[in-house]
């Protein structure tokens, strides 16, 4: 499966995802600019992404706990998600997203 990621500089990357991985792990593994400091424990919001409008319905809405974590970043939009909460599967093959400024490493 493939994930299309636009980084904070506007550059596009085509990443190969593995079934069962979290999207955050794929982005981190490919060395893109994502801090992901809690490592997927839903305890920070430093893997914040904007999901392309066409994919919003398929990816689904954030959970309450995820919404709470999104309170800790200042650049939330209606299509904000934490990429550690999106699992790679055939259903999201071709997923398009953009890394949020607040996901950047220092």
């Amino acid at each position, binding site marked *: 499966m493939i994930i299309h990621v636009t980084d904070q500089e506007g550059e596009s990357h085509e990443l190969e995802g593995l079934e069962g991985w979290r999207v955050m792990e794929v982005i981190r593994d490919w060395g893109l600019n994502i*801090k992901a400091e*809690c490592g997927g424990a839903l305890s*920070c919001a430093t893997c914040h992404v904007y999901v392309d409008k066409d994919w919003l319905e398929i990816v689904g809405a954030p959970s309450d706990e995820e919404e709470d974590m999104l*309170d800790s970043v200042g*650049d939330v939009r209606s299509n904000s998600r934490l990429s550690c909460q999106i699992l790679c599967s055939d259903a999201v093959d071709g997923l398009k997203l953009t890394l949020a400024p607040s996901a950047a490493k220092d």
Partner: protein
Amino acid sequence: MTTEITTDVVVIGAGPCGLFAAFELGLLDLKCHFIDILDRPGGQCAELYPEKPIYDIPGFPVVTGQQLVDNLMAQIAPFAPEFHFNRMVNSIDKQEDGSFKLATDADEIFHTKVIVIAAGGGSFQPKRPPVDGIEQFENKSVFYSVRKMDDFRGQDVVIVGGGDSALDWTLNLQPIVRSLTLVHRRAVFKAAPASVNKMQELVGEGKINFLTGQIAKLDGENGQIDHVHLSTDAGDLSLPATRLLPFFGLTMKLGPVADWGLELNDNTIVVDTEKFETSVPGIFAIGDINSYPGKLKLILSGFHEAALMAQAAKAIVSPGERVVFQYTTSSTKLQKKLGVA
């Protein structure tokens, strides 16, 4: 007044790896002082995920972050390490005799033979909202904590956030400010219900404003803001403001570690895999903050690194002394140190 402390080892960072280092160092009779920016031990385990189960600690099928920290604190208690919380290391100077003079922002000077950096992802710092040019206003009119309430007296204050810090300071500052606006991205708060109710009462009485939105831009000059621009569902708006308090929680930054002259690689400290020593002899780095070929950022790797580091630290503190490798299961000497023999 400056406090001067002399010790064998200063450990920077009281997360799980730092705490276990005190055990390995203690078995070798080395005295430890801890310095940590948080107000309690545990580092990420306590700050980021105290309630989350961890499944890859050897011997524990499952343990929460806080349980692990509590267990480590019990394990190192016989060695009575001393903790210095809520402070940061400002500088490290190597002395002619090879020891170090380490200064903190709490006016302490440590004289130590060995330094162990166990700082994880760095020090926890307030999260800076992604607003262009916010740095120029920081500590002048934009603050991430309230140190002196008087700095806010008579000011037009904007507080951003929906957690306890944002709510508590809204309630505490309201009586002394000229105006106060609380801004949060939604009308849902993750704070004590009593504070939320009280805040809503103040809004109802017209004593404060509440807006749903996010900061888009700051105007001002010479470090002094005059307007905060918000993007809201109802469009953009501009608020006159002289103080801004963003409360977005904490994030980890390498911080002053970068200034200590150590060889770094992608925000981690380069070490060897025999002693886990940095490019500066006598300064070691263990846990998530170090890097070497094959490094895995696992707590268990940090425990291993602590054990090897301790042997090397002992050779620095007690040069020439023959160290006999012993097991806690069989050595009465070690058992006496642990208070069980």
